[in-house]
Protein backbone atom coordinates (compact mmCIF):
# COMPACT_ATOMS: atom_id res chain seq x y z
CA UNK A 1 0.00 0.00 0.00
CA UNK A 2 1.29 3.45 -0.87
CA UNK A 3 0.89 5.86 2.01
CA UNK A 4 0.28 9.54 1.61
CA UNK A 5 3.06 10.02 4.13
CA UNK A 6 5.53 7.56 5.54
CA UNK A 7 8.13 8.61 8.08
CA UNK A 8 10.78 6.25 9.39
CA UNK A 9 13.12 6.88 12.30
CA UNK A 10 13.13 10.60 11.67
CA UNK A 11 15.62 12.52 13.79
CA UNK A 12 16.48 16.17 13.97
CA UNK A 13 19.27 17.65 16.03
CA UNK A 14 19.66 21.42 15.74
CA UNK A 15 22.99 23.20 15.74
CA UNK A 16 22.72 23.91 19.47
CA UNK A 17 22.49 20.10 19.97
CA UNK A 18 18.80 20.32 20.83
CA UNK A 19 17.23 17.02 19.84
CA UNK A 20 13.89 18.09 18.41
CA UNK A 21 12.95 14.68 16.98
CA UNK A 22 14.19 11.45 18.50
CA UNK A 23 13.21 8.89 15.89
CA UNK A 24 9.64 9.36 14.74
CA UNK A 25 7.80 6.61 12.84
CA UNK A 26 4.52 7.59 11.27
CA UNK A 27 2.22 6.52 8.47
CA UNK A 28 -0.71 8.45 7.07
CA UNK A 29 -3.04 6.63 4.70
CA UNK A 30 -4.23 8.20 1.46
CA UNK A 31 -7.45 10.14 1.92
CA UNK A 32 -7.03 10.34 5.69
CA UNK A 33 -7.78 13.37 7.84
CA UNK A 34 -4.97 13.03 10.32
CA UNK A 35 -4.30 14.97 13.51
CA UNK A 36 -0.74 15.55 14.66
CA UNK A 37 -0.99 16.90 18.17
CA UNK A 38 1.44 17.81 20.89
CA UNK A 39 2.29 20.57 23.32
CA UNK A 40 4.36 23.58 22.26
CA UNK A 41 7.91 22.60 21.41
CA UNK A 42 7.01 18.91 21.06
CA UNK A 43 8.37 18.63 17.52
CA UNK A 44 5.25 19.04 15.37
CA UNK A 45 6.47 22.04 13.41
CA UNK A 46 9.91 20.48 13.00
CA UNK A 47 8.27 17.37 11.54
CA UNK A 48 6.17 19.49 9.18
CA UNK A 49 9.20 21.60 8.28
CA UNK A 50 11.14 18.49 7.28
CA UNK A 51 8.28 17.05 5.24
CA UNK A 52 7.89 20.34 3.36
CA UNK A 53 11.65 20.82 2.80
CA UNK A 54 11.99 23.88 5.02
CA UNK A 55 14.12 22.08 7.58
CA UNK A 56 16.95 19.65 6.85
CA UNK A 57 16.56 16.35 8.70
CA UNK A 58 19.46 14.82 10.61
CA UNK A 59 18.57 11.21 9.73
CA UNK A 60 15.70 8.93 8.85
CA UNK A 61 13.50 8.84 5.79
CA UNK A 62 10.36 10.59 4.58
CA UNK A 63 8.29 9.58 1.60
CA UNK A 64 5.16 11.19 0.18
CA UNK A 65 2.92 9.08 -2.07
CA UNK A 66 5.88 6.76 -2.54
CA UNK A 67 8.34 9.50 -3.51
CA UNK A 68 11.40 9.68 -1.32
CA UNK A 69 12.31 13.11 0.03
CA UNK A 70 16.03 12.54 -0.60
CA UNK A 71 15.88 11.14 -4.12
CA UNK A 72 12.63 12.64 -5.46
CA UNK A 73 12.39 15.94 -3.62
CA UNK A 74 10.69 17.77 -6.50
CA UNK A 75 7.94 15.13 -6.77
CA UNK A 76 7.45 15.24 -3.01
CA UNK A 77 7.10 19.03 -3.17
CA UNK A 78 4.67 18.81 -6.06
CA UNK A 79 2.31 16.67 -3.96
CA UNK A 80 2.33 18.83 -0.85
CA UNK A 81 0.43 21.99 0.02
CA UNK A 82 1.49 23.72 3.21
CA UNK A 83 -0.41 26.14 5.42
CA UNK A 84 2.19 27.21 7.96
CA UNK A 85 1.61 28.44 11.47
CA UNK A 86 2.97 31.96 10.85
CA UNK A 87 1.74 34.28 8.11
CA UNK A 88 4.46 33.96 5.51
CA UNK A 89 3.27 35.84 2.47
CA UNK A 90 4.47 39.21 1.27
CA UNK A 91 2.09 41.59 2.99
CA UNK A 92 2.79 44.24 0.36
CA UNK A 93 1.37 42.13 -2.48
CA UNK A 94 -2.28 41.97 -3.57
CA UNK A 95 -4.19 38.87 -2.45
CA UNK A 96 -4.77 37.61 -5.98
CA UNK A 97 -1.10 37.97 -6.94
CA UNK A 98 0.03 35.92 -3.96
CA UNK A 99 -2.06 32.94 -5.02
CA UNK A 100 -1.33 33.27 -8.76
CA UNK A 101 2.42 33.55 -8.13
CA UNK A 102 2.35 30.43 -5.99
CA UNK A 103 0.85 28.62 -8.98
CA UNK A 104 3.71 29.97 -11.06
CA UNK A 105 6.29 28.38 -8.74
CA UNK A 106 4.65 25.04 -9.55
CA UNK A 107 4.87 25.71 -13.28
CA UNK A 108 1.17 26.46 -13.73
CA UNK A 109 0.60 28.91 -16.62
CA UNK A 110 -0.62 32.30 -15.44
CA UNK A 111 -4.01 32.06 -17.21
CA UNK A 112 -4.70 28.69 -15.60
CA UNK A 113 -3.46 29.90 -12.20
CA UNK A 114 -5.80 32.89 -12.50
CA UNK A 115 -8.82 30.61 -13.06
CA UNK A 116 -7.90 28.40 -10.11
CA UNK A 117 -7.26 31.45 -7.93
CA UNK A 118 -10.68 32.86 -8.71
CA UNK A 119 -12.36 29.58 -7.77
CA UNK A 120 -10.41 29.26 -4.53
CA UNK A 121 -10.87 32.87 -3.45
CA UNK A 122 -14.60 32.59 -4.09
CA UNK A 123 -14.83 29.33 -2.14
CA UNK A 124 -12.97 30.88 0.77
CA UNK A 125 -14.86 34.16 0.71
CA UNK A 126 -11.92 36.31 -0.36
CA UNK A 127 -12.88 37.21 -3.91
CA UNK A 128 -14.01 40.71 -2.93
CA UNK A 129 -10.60 41.29 -1.37
CA UNK A 130 -8.58 40.06 -4.34
CA UNK A 131 -7.03 43.45 -5.12
CA UNK A 132 -6.38 44.39 -1.48
CA UNK A 133 -2.83 44.35 -0.18
CA UNK A 134 -2.49 41.31 2.07
CA UNK A 135 -1.52 43.49 5.03
CA UNK A 136 -5.05 44.96 5.04
CA UNK A 137 -6.73 41.60 5.64
CA UNK A 138 -8.05 40.52 9.02
CA UNK A 139 -6.43 37.59 10.81
CA UNK A 140 -9.10 35.16 9.64
CA UNK A 141 -8.79 36.34 6.04
CA UNK A 142 -5.02 35.91 6.16
CA UNK A 143 -5.49 32.32 7.33
CA UNK A 144 -7.90 31.67 4.45
CA UNK A 145 -5.49 33.27 2.02
CA UNK A 146 -2.82 30.82 3.11
CA UNK A 147 -5.23 27.93 2.52
CA UNK A 148 -6.03 29.24 -0.98
CA UNK A 149 -2.34 29.62 -1.73
CA UNK A 150 -1.60 26.07 -0.51
CA UNK A 151 -4.30 24.60 -2.76
CA UNK A 152 -3.62 26.41 -6.03
CA UNK A 153 -1.46 23.58 -7.38
CA UNK A 154 -4.05 20.99 -6.26
CA UNK A 155 -1.86 19.02 -3.86
CA UNK A 156 -2.78 15.50 -2.85
CA UNK A 157 -1.49 16.10 0.66
CA UNK A 158 -2.43 19.26 2.53
CA UNK A 159 -0.56 20.04 5.72
CA UNK A 160 -2.19 22.56 8.04
CA UNK A 161 -0.14 23.85 10.94
CA UNK A 162 -2.65 25.45 13.31
CA UNK A 163 -4.81 26.88 10.53
CA UNK A 164 -7.50 28.26 12.81
CA UNK A 165 -5.32 29.93 15.43
CA UNK A 166 -6.86 33.27 16.36
CA UNK A 167 -9.86 32.78 14.07
CA UNK A 168 -13.37 33.49 15.35
CA UNK A 169 -15.79 30.60 15.73
CA UNK A 170 -17.92 31.44 12.68
CA UNK A 171 -14.96 31.50 10.32
CA UNK A 172 -13.46 28.48 12.03
CA UNK A 173 -16.59 26.48 11.34
CA UNK A 174 -16.70 27.57 7.71
CA UNK A 175 -13.06 26.52 7.40
CA UNK A 176 -13.88 23.13 8.94
CA UNK A 177 -16.66 22.70 6.39
CA UNK A 178 -14.32 23.60 3.55
CA UNK A 179 -11.61 21.24 4.80
CA UNK A 180 -14.10 18.39 5.20
CA UNK A 181 -15.23 18.95 1.61
CA UNK A 182 -11.75 18.83 0.11
CA UNK A 183 -10.96 15.78 2.22
CA UNK A 184 -14.07 14.07 0.86
CA UNK A 185 -12.88 14.94 -2.63
CA UNK A 186 -9.71 12.94 -1.97
CA UNK A 187 -7.15 15.31 -0.50
CA UNK A 188 -5.25 13.80 2.41
CA UNK A 189 -5.03 16.29 5.26
CA UNK A 190 -2.63 16.46 8.17
CA UNK A 191 -3.71 18.92 10.83
CA UNK A 192 -1.93 20.26 13.85
CA UNK A 193 -3.99 22.31 16.22
CA UNK A 194 -4.26 23.38 19.82
CA UNK A 195 -8.05 23.29 19.57
CA UNK A 196 -8.61 19.66 20.44
CA UNK A 197 -12.31 19.74 19.69
CA UNK A 198 -11.25 20.68 16.16
CA UNK A 199 -9.13 17.54 15.87
CA UNK A 200 -11.91 15.45 17.41
CA UNK A 201 -14.49 16.80 14.97
CA UNK A 202 -12.39 16.57 11.83
CA UNK A 203 -9.82 13.81 12.12
CA UNK A 204 -10.14 10.06 11.78
CA UNK A 205 -6.64 9.20 12.96
CA UNK A 206 -4.31 10.83 15.39
CA UNK A 207 -0.72 10.92 16.52
CA UNK A 208 0.46 12.64 19.66
CA UNK A 209 4.02 13.81 19.80
CA UNK A 210 5.79 14.95 22.94
CA UNK A 211 9.39 15.85 23.58
CA UNK A 212 10.39 14.66 20.09
CA UNK A 213 8.80 11.23 20.46
CA UNK A 214 5.51 9.74 19.35
CA UNK A 215 3.45 8.86 22.43
CA UNK A 216 0.31 7.74 20.60
CA UNK A 217 -0.61 6.83 17.04
CA UNK A 218 -4.05 5.36 16.56
CA UNK A 219 -7.56 6.04 15.31
CA UNK A 220 -9.56 8.79 16.97
CA UNK A 221 -12.19 6.26 17.98
CA UNK A 222 -9.69 3.91 19.59
CA UNK A 223 -8.06 6.77 21.40
CA UNK A 224 -11.32 8.08 22.79
CA UNK A 225 -12.20 4.53 23.88
CA UNK A 226 -9.19 4.67 26.15
CA UNK A 227 -11.04 7.11 28.36
CA UNK A 228 -12.00 5.23 31.55
CA UNK A 229 -14.18 7.97 32.84
CA UNK A 230 -15.92 11.07 31.58
CA UNK A 231 -17.21 13.95 33.64
CA UNK A 232 -20.52 15.50 32.62
CA UNK A 233 -22.09 18.72 33.74
CA UNK A 234 -25.89 18.51 34.04
CA UNK A 235 -28.04 21.63 33.97
CA UNK A 236 -31.28 20.97 35.86
CA UNK A 237 -34.75 22.29 35.16
CA UNK A 238 -35.48 23.04 38.81
CA UNK A 239 -33.37 23.91 41.81
CA UNK A 240 -32.52 21.15 44.26
CA UNK A 241 -31.62 21.52 47.93
CA UNK A 242 -29.31 18.54 48.41
CA UNK A 243 -27.26 16.02 46.50
CA UNK A 244 -29.43 13.24 45.09
CA UNK A 245 -28.54 9.64 45.88
CA UNK A 246 -27.23 8.05 42.65
CA UNK A 247 -25.65 4.80 43.83
CA UNK A 248 -22.30 4.08 42.16
CA UNK A 249 -22.15 7.40 40.37
CA UNK A 250 -19.80 9.96 41.87
CA UNK A 251 -21.70 13.20 41.93
CA UNK A 252 -20.99 16.78 43.00
CA UNK A 253 -23.29 19.74 43.31
CA UNK A 254 -21.88 22.86 41.66
CA UNK A 255 -24.87 25.00 42.56
CA UNK A 256 -28.57 24.48 43.19
CA UNK A 257 -29.30 23.77 39.52
CA UNK A 258 -26.04 22.23 38.31
CA UNK A 259 -24.61 18.79 38.96
CA UNK A 260 -21.31 17.23 37.96
CA UNK A 261 -21.24 13.46 37.46
CA UNK A 262 -18.35 11.10 36.82
CA UNK A 263 -19.44 8.30 34.48
CA UNK A 264 -17.10 5.34 34.18
CA UNK A 265 -16.63 3.42 30.95
CA UNK A 266 -18.75 0.46 32.11
CA UNK A 267 -21.53 2.66 33.45
CA UNK A 268 -24.55 3.64 31.39
CA UNK A 269 -26.13 7.04 30.89
CA UNK A 270 -29.67 5.56 30.71
CA UNK A 271 -29.28 4.22 34.22
CA UNK A 272 -28.11 7.63 35.44
CA UNK A 273 -31.08 9.39 33.89
CA UNK A 274 -33.42 6.73 35.28
CA UNK A 275 -32.15 7.38 38.79
CA UNK A 276 -32.51 11.13 38.34
CA UNK A 277 -36.06 10.80 37.01
CA UNK A 278 -36.99 8.56 39.92
CA UNK A 279 -36.11 11.45 42.20
CA UNK A 280 -38.08 13.95 40.08
CA UNK A 281 -34.93 15.63 38.88
CA UNK A 282 -35.26 16.75 35.26
CA UNK A 283 -32.16 17.48 33.18
CA UNK A 284 -32.42 20.40 30.75
CA UNK A 285 -29.02 19.97 29.11
CA UNK A 286 -25.77 18.10 29.46
CA UNK A 287 -22.17 18.70 28.36
CA UNK A 288 -18.73 17.23 28.84
CA UNK A 289 -16.85 19.09 31.55
CA UNK A 290 -13.63 18.86 29.55
CA UNK A 291 -13.23 17.92 25.90
CA UNK A 292 -12.67 14.16 25.82
CA UNK A 293 -9.62 14.41 23.61
CA UNK A 294 -8.22 17.15 25.80
CA UNK A 295 -8.52 14.89 28.82
CA UNK A 296 -6.70 12.05 27.06
CA UNK A 297 -4.13 14.39 25.60
CA UNK A 298 -3.25 15.74 29.03
CA UNK A 299 -3.03 12.21 30.46
CA UNK A 300 -0.73 11.00 27.70
CA UNK A 301 1.52 14.05 27.77
CA UNK A 302 1.72 14.10 31.55
CA UNK A 303 2.45 10.37 31.65
CA UNK A 304 5.33 10.87 29.22
CA UNK A 305 6.67 13.89 31.12
CA UNK A 306 6.58 11.94 34.40
Amino acid at each position, binding site marked *: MTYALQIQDLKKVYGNRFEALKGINLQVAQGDFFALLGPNGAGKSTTIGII*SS*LINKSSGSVSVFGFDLDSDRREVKRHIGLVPQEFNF*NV*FEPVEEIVI*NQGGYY*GIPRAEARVRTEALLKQLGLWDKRREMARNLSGGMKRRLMIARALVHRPKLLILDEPTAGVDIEIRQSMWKFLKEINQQGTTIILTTHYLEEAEQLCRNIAIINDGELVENTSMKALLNQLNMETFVLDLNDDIQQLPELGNYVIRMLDSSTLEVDVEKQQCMNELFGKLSAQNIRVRSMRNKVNRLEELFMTLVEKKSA
Partner: protein
Amino acid sequence: MSAKEIYIAFQTILVKEILRFVRIWIQTLLPPAITTALYFVIFGSLIGSQIGDMEGFAYMDFIVPGLILMAVITNSYANVVSSFYSSKFQHNIEEMLISPTPNYVILLGHVAGGVARGLFVGFIVTGVSLFFTDLSIDNWFITTLVILLTAFLFSLAGFINAVYANSFDDITIIPTFVLTPLTYLGGVFYSIKMLPDFWQDVSLANPILYMVNAFRYGILGASDIAIGTAFGLIIGFIILLFGWAMYLLNNGIGIRK
Protein backbone atom coordinates in the same frame (compact mmCIF):
# COMPACT_ATOMS: atom_id res chain seq x y z
CA MET B 1 9.63 20.04 -13.79
CA SER B 2 9.46 20.32 -17.54
CA ALA B 3 11.33 23.08 -19.39
CA LYS B 4 8.05 24.95 -19.83
CA GLU B 5 7.24 24.73 -16.11
CA ILE B 6 10.74 25.93 -15.25
CA TYR B 7 10.30 28.87 -17.60
CA ILE B 8 6.95 29.73 -15.97
CA ALA B 9 8.55 29.62 -12.51
CA PHE B 10 11.40 31.87 -13.71
CA GLN B 11 8.98 34.29 -15.35
CA THR B 12 6.87 34.38 -12.17
CA ILE B 13 9.84 35.38 -10.01
CA LEU B 14 11.07 37.92 -12.56
CA VAL B 15 7.67 39.59 -13.01
CA LYS B 16 7.17 39.65 -9.23
CA GLU B 17 10.57 41.29 -8.79
CA ILE B 18 9.90 43.89 -11.49
CA LEU B 19 6.46 44.71 -10.06
CA ARG B 20 8.05 45.09 -6.64
CA PHE B 21 10.49 47.81 -7.64
CA VAL B 22 8.02 49.52 -9.98
CA ARG B 23 5.39 49.58 -7.21
CA ILE B 24 7.82 51.48 -4.96
CA TRP B 25 9.30 53.64 -7.74
CA ILE B 26 9.69 56.62 -5.40
CA GLN B 27 12.21 54.59 -3.42
CA THR B 28 13.80 52.72 -6.30
CA LEU B 29 13.71 54.65 -9.57
CA LEU B 30 13.46 58.32 -8.62
CA PRO B 31 16.44 58.69 -6.24
CA PRO B 32 19.11 57.61 -8.78
CA ALA B 33 17.71 60.11 -11.30
CA ILE B 34 17.96 62.95 -8.77
CA THR B 35 21.39 61.91 -7.46
CA THR B 36 22.84 61.60 -10.93
CA ALA B 37 21.36 64.93 -12.02
CA LEU B 38 23.15 66.49 -9.02
CA TYR B 39 26.41 64.80 -10.03
CA PHE B 40 26.05 66.19 -13.54
CA VAL B 41 25.27 69.69 -12.28
CA ILE B 42 28.00 69.85 -9.63
CA PHE B 43 30.83 67.71 -11.02
CA GLY B 44 30.00 68.00 -14.68
CA SER B 45 28.89 71.59 -15.18
CA LEU B 46 30.20 73.57 -12.20
CA ILE B 47 33.49 71.86 -11.30
CA GLY B 48 33.97 70.07 -14.63
CA SER B 49 34.08 73.31 -16.57
CA GLN B 50 37.15 74.29 -14.48
CA ILE B 51 38.89 70.93 -15.04
CA GLY B 52 38.99 70.95 -18.80
CA ASP B 53 39.55 67.81 -20.89
CA MET B 54 40.35 64.37 -19.53
CA GLU B 55 41.90 61.70 -21.77
CA GLY B 56 40.94 63.87 -24.72
CA PHE B 57 37.25 64.20 -23.73
CA ALA B 58 35.27 67.00 -22.09
CA TYR B 59 35.07 66.18 -18.37
CA MET B 60 31.28 65.89 -18.57
CA ASP B 61 31.57 63.30 -21.36
CA PHE B 62 34.28 61.48 -19.42
CA ILE B 63 32.19 60.97 -16.28
CA VAL B 64 28.91 60.00 -18.00
CA PRO B 65 29.79 56.27 -18.51
CA GLY B 66 31.04 55.94 -14.94
CA LEU B 67 27.96 57.58 -13.49
CA ILE B 68 25.63 55.36 -15.53
CA LEU B 69 27.50 52.24 -14.47
CA MET B 70 27.66 53.38 -10.86
CA ALA B 71 23.87 53.66 -10.83
CA VAL B 72 23.54 50.22 -12.47
CA ILE B 73 25.91 48.62 -9.93
CA THR B 74 24.24 50.20 -6.91
CA ASN B 75 20.71 49.45 -8.02
CA SER B 76 21.16 45.90 -9.23
CA TYR B 77 22.88 45.08 -5.94
CA ALA B 78 20.31 46.93 -3.83
CA ASN B 79 17.36 45.30 -5.58
CA VAL B 80 18.40 41.74 -4.92
CA VAL B 81 19.79 42.26 -1.43
CA SER B 82 16.68 44.07 -0.21
CA SER B 83 14.17 41.86 -2.02
CA PHE B 84 15.70 38.54 -1.01
CA TYR B 85 16.40 39.63 2.54
CA SER B 86 12.82 40.90 2.91
CA SER B 87 11.61 37.53 1.64
CA LYS B 88 13.73 35.85 4.28
CA PHE B 89 12.61 38.28 6.97
CA GLN B 90 8.89 37.85 6.18
CA HIS B 91 9.43 34.13 5.52
CA ASN B 92 7.76 34.40 2.13
CA ILE B 93 10.88 32.84 0.62
CA GLU B 94 9.24 29.66 1.92
CA GLU B 95 6.69 29.99 -0.91
CA MET B 96 9.50 29.12 -3.30
CA LEU B 97 11.39 26.72 -1.06
CA ILE B 98 8.39 24.40 -0.66
CA SER B 99 7.69 24.43 -4.40
CA PRO B 100 9.47 22.26 -6.96
CA THR B 101 11.17 25.33 -8.47
CA PRO B 102 14.86 24.39 -8.82
CA ASN B 103 17.35 26.43 -6.81
CA TYR B 104 19.05 27.78 -9.91
CA VAL B 105 15.71 29.21 -11.07
CA ILE B 106 15.19 30.91 -7.71
CA LEU B 107 18.66 32.42 -8.07
CA LEU B 108 18.30 33.40 -11.73
CA GLY B 109 14.83 34.87 -11.16
CA HIS B 110 16.09 37.18 -8.43
CA VAL B 111 19.24 38.05 -10.34
CA ALA B 112 17.19 38.83 -13.45
CA GLY B 113 15.06 41.13 -11.28
CA GLY B 114 18.23 42.91 -10.17
CA VAL B 115 19.44 43.18 -13.76
CA ALA B 116 16.05 44.59 -14.77
CA ARG B 117 16.22 47.31 -12.12
CA GLY B 118 19.85 48.02 -13.01
CA LEU B 119 18.88 48.47 -16.67
CA PHE B 120 15.80 50.54 -15.80
CA VAL B 121 17.90 52.89 -13.71
CA GLY B 122 20.65 52.84 -16.36
CA PHE B 123 18.14 54.09 -18.94
CA ILE B 124 16.85 56.77 -16.58
CA VAL B 125 20.36 58.02 -15.79
CA THR B 126 21.25 57.94 -19.47
CA GLY B 127 18.12 59.99 -20.15
CA VAL B 128 19.15 62.51 -17.48
CA SER B 129 22.67 62.73 -18.95
CA LEU B 130 21.18 63.78 -22.29
CA PHE B 131 20.16 67.07 -20.65
CA PHE B 132 23.83 67.80 -20.02
CA THR B 133 25.72 66.28 -22.94
CA ASP B 134 25.29 64.77 -26.39
CA LEU B 135 25.84 61.10 -25.77
CA SER B 136 27.02 59.00 -28.69
CA ILE B 137 27.91 55.37 -28.30
CA ASP B 138 31.11 54.15 -29.92
CA ASN B 139 30.45 50.40 -29.66
CA TRP B 140 26.90 49.23 -28.96
CA PHE B 141 27.87 45.58 -28.51
CA ILE B 142 30.51 46.22 -25.85
CA THR B 143 28.34 48.81 -24.10
CA THR B 144 25.36 46.45 -23.89
CA LEU B 145 27.45 43.44 -22.90
CA VAL B 146 29.30 45.30 -20.13
CA ILE B 147 26.15 46.76 -18.63
CA LEU B 148 24.37 43.38 -18.68
CA LEU B 149 27.29 41.45 -17.23
CA THR B 150 27.97 44.07 -14.57
CA ALA B 151 24.32 44.16 -13.50
CA PHE B 152 24.32 40.35 -13.41
CA LEU B 153 27.50 40.27 -11.34
CA PHE B 154 26.29 42.75 -8.73
CA SER B 155 22.88 41.13 -8.53
CA LEU B 156 24.66 37.89 -7.64
CA ALA B 157 26.69 39.73 -5.03
CA GLY B 158 23.50 41.22 -3.58
CA PHE B 159 21.96 37.75 -3.41
CA ILE B 160 24.91 36.35 -1.45
CA ASN B 161 24.81 39.33 0.92
CA ALA B 162 21.08 38.71 1.50
CA VAL B 163 21.62 35.02 2.24
CA TYR B 164 24.17 35.81 4.94
CA ALA B 165 22.28 38.82 6.34
CA ASN B 166 20.60 38.39 9.71
CA SER B 167 19.33 41.93 10.11
CA PHE B 168 18.56 44.99 8.01
CA ASP B 169 21.91 46.44 9.17
CA ASP B 170 23.68 43.55 7.46
CA ILE B 171 22.29 44.49 4.07
CA THR B 172 23.68 48.04 4.26
CA ILE B 173 27.21 47.22 5.48
CA ILE B 174 28.60 45.95 2.16
CA PRO B 175 27.06 48.73 0.00
CA THR B 176 28.22 51.43 2.42
CA PHE B 177 31.67 50.23 3.38
CA VAL B 178 32.74 48.22 0.34
CA LEU B 179 30.71 48.99 -2.76
CA THR B 180 30.56 52.78 -2.55
CA PRO B 181 34.31 53.30 -1.83
CA LEU B 182 35.29 50.84 -4.57
CA THR B 183 32.97 52.57 -7.03
CA TYR B 184 34.24 56.06 -6.21
CA LEU B 185 37.83 54.81 -6.44
CA GLY B 186 37.03 52.84 -9.60
CA GLY B 187 37.79 55.64 -12.03
CA VAL B 188 34.29 57.05 -12.30
CA PHE B 189 35.50 60.63 -11.85
CA TYR B 190 39.11 60.38 -12.95
CA SER B 191 41.55 58.46 -15.08
CA ILE B 192 43.94 56.32 -13.08
CA LYS B 193 46.72 57.70 -15.28
CA MET B 194 46.46 60.82 -13.12
CA LEU B 195 47.57 58.82 -10.08
CA PRO B 196 51.15 58.14 -8.97
CA ASP B 197 52.48 54.72 -10.06
CA PHE B 198 51.93 53.13 -6.65
CA TRP B 199 48.26 54.15 -6.48
CA GLN B 200 47.79 53.12 -10.10
CA ASP B 201 48.93 49.62 -9.11
CA VAL B 202 46.66 49.65 -6.06
CA SER B 203 43.73 50.76 -8.24
CA LEU B 204 44.25 47.75 -10.50
CA ALA B 205 43.17 45.54 -7.59
CA ASN B 206 39.75 47.19 -7.69
CA PRO B 207 37.44 45.09 -9.91
CA ILE B 208 35.03 47.98 -10.43
CA LEU B 209 37.80 49.90 -12.22
CA TYR B 210 37.73 47.27 -14.98
CA MET B 211 33.98 47.48 -15.40
CA VAL B 212 33.90 51.27 -15.49
CA ASN B 213 36.70 51.33 -18.02
CA ALA B 214 35.14 48.63 -20.19
CA PHE B 215 31.88 50.56 -20.21
CA ARG B 216 33.70 53.81 -20.96
CA TYR B 217 35.41 52.01 -23.81
CA GLY B 218 32.02 51.00 -25.19
CA ILE B 219 30.72 54.57 -25.07
CA LEU B 220 33.79 56.71 -25.73
CA GLY B 221 36.17 54.21 -27.30
CA ALA B 222 38.83 54.96 -24.66
CA SER B 223 39.94 52.97 -21.61
CA ASP B 224 42.74 52.87 -19.03
CA ILE B 225 42.92 49.09 -19.17
CA ALA B 226 42.77 46.29 -21.77
CA ILE B 227 39.19 45.44 -22.68
CA GLY B 228 39.89 41.69 -22.79
CA THR B 229 41.20 41.74 -19.24
CA ALA B 230 38.05 43.55 -18.12
CA PHE B 231 35.75 40.95 -19.71
CA GLY B 232 37.85 38.10 -18.34
CA LEU B 233 37.60 39.55 -14.85
CA ILE B 234 33.85 40.19 -15.01
CA ILE B 235 33.09 36.71 -16.32
CA GLY B 236 35.49 35.15 -13.80
CA PHE B 237 33.70 36.90 -10.93
CA ILE B 238 30.30 35.88 -12.29
CA ILE B 239 31.32 32.22 -12.36
CA LEU B 240 32.75 32.48 -8.86
CA LEU B 241 29.72 34.22 -7.35
CA PHE B 242 27.21 32.03 -9.19
CA GLY B 243 28.92 28.91 -7.80
CA TRP B 244 28.97 30.43 -4.33
CA ALA B 245 25.30 31.39 -4.45
CA MET B 246 24.30 27.92 -5.68
CA TYR B 247 26.32 26.31 -2.90
CA LEU B 248 24.46 28.43 -0.34
CA LEU B 249 21.06 27.62 -1.82
CA ASN B 250 21.70 23.89 -2.25
CA ASN B 251 22.87 23.57 1.34
CA GLY B 252 20.13 25.79 2.68
CA ILE B 253 22.70 28.07 4.35
CA GLY B 254 20.96 31.12 5.76
CA ILE B 255 17.54 30.04 4.51
CA ARG B 256 16.80 26.59 5.94
CA LYS B 257 17.17 25.38 9.50
